[in-house]
């Protein structure tokens, strides 16, 4: 592969950028992702994950079976917030900032 080959199409990350962070110590797809944005776009690494594994293997000699897969997260395919929302306005785990402001004797602590 040429150094200028685009590995991550969503974020337009080239092989050169990926090789650079591997030489800076990145060892997993997720390390590379955080430093370059490779795999952070709409496809969420479905396209680039094998290509990145190949780059890690080539640069470090790590056998493929020892290279961890990228962490897959919901939603596997993009969905609208409208679909996800239930339209409730009561929150339990989710807070607002004023919730966190503590009062003591009628004053802010």
């Amino acid at each position: 592969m040429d150094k200028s080959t685009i590995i991550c199409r969503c974020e337009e990350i080239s092989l050169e950028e990926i090789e650079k962070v591997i030489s800076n110590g990145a060892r997993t797809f997720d390390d590379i992702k955080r430093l370059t944005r490779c795999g952070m776009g709409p496809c969420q690494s479905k396209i680039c994950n094998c290509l990145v594994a190949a780059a890690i293997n080539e640069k470090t000699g790590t056998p493929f079976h020892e290279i961890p897969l990228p962490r897959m997260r919901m939603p596997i395919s993009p969905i609208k917030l409208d679909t996800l929302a239930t339209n409730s306005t009561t929150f339990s785990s989710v807070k607002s900032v004023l919730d966190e402001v503590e009062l003591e004797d009628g004053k802010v602590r």
Partner: protein
Amino acid sequence: METSYETIIIGGGVVGSSIAYHLSERNKGGILVLDKKFPLSGTSGSTQAWVWVHNKTPSWYAEFSMYSAELYPYLSKKIGDVEYKRTGGLSPFFNEADREKALLLAKTYESIGIKIKVLTREEALEKEPSLNPEVAGATYSSIDGNVNPFRLVDRYMRAAKKNGVQYSTYNKVTEIQKLPGKFMVVSQKGTFQCKNLVLAGGTWSRELGKMVDITIPINQLRGQILVTEPLKPFLNYTISGLRQAFNGEVLIGYSMEKEGFNRATTLEVMQETANLAVHYVPSLRKAKVVRAFSGIRAMPEDGFPILGRIPGVENLFVAATHSGVTLSPLIGTLMTELILDGDTSIPIDRYSITRFNNMETK
């Protein structure tokens, strides 16, 4: 690789790397950062990364946060573009009853130099036209903002390395021995010795503390965040609960769960987070979510930073905190002063680990 250093920092996250960088500005060489995995694989890489001041309580903690936020513009000149934006921070409220609390907050903080404005509904909507028209008002402060956490830690690391700092990653520390005048730090990849040792293990601080027989009371608090597809720039401010990044994606989340180190995302909290988003900014309904992720915050038992010397063990230091992104420029600066000069320009006694022992004896 060398085995003898002036200072070893355990933990290469935003706190550890900031300390390494700030130390290296004055002492080139002789600094090693050990990380059990790779910087950004933990808390520092799974955050919305607000640089947030305006409704931290109590006021002395907000003041401390403000000093740190003030360092950001200069820091980004020194280490490079970290996509820091002082957008101003907006905390909407939807209940008129909250206005009183907001006014109290503004009044208290005026005395320490943090300007908070309590906005009317009209003012809030004028500032941020995308807000839900049902909003009752908002608190606003111009000092808040956000930063790209990946770039931040990467830039700290690069600047530190340029100044001679060494990083040893995927290298877990397994044992710490205190010998006269030095520490022996045993890691998976070898044994290192140093004069000064800094524990900056974030969520793993308790584990590190055990190696030197002290309790560093840091707990874990999970946060789940939704990321949208890139949208055209439309949010002017960092809103408590969501912010738009440079590339247009919107990060949404304000959840807190005690789940230990479990980094799963759950449908329930994702739905609640989606509800928060459409409640605050209704036009987000049409935006697509590309990813949910979760991060484990480091949460000190009383919520405040644990900084400074560890009493009784010479040259042993701890820096463990929540809000590491906001506080990292200041913590790096002050820990450097403490290690090299023996004192800090801004007092950090309040953040000493000894406060927990005091609590026990009460």
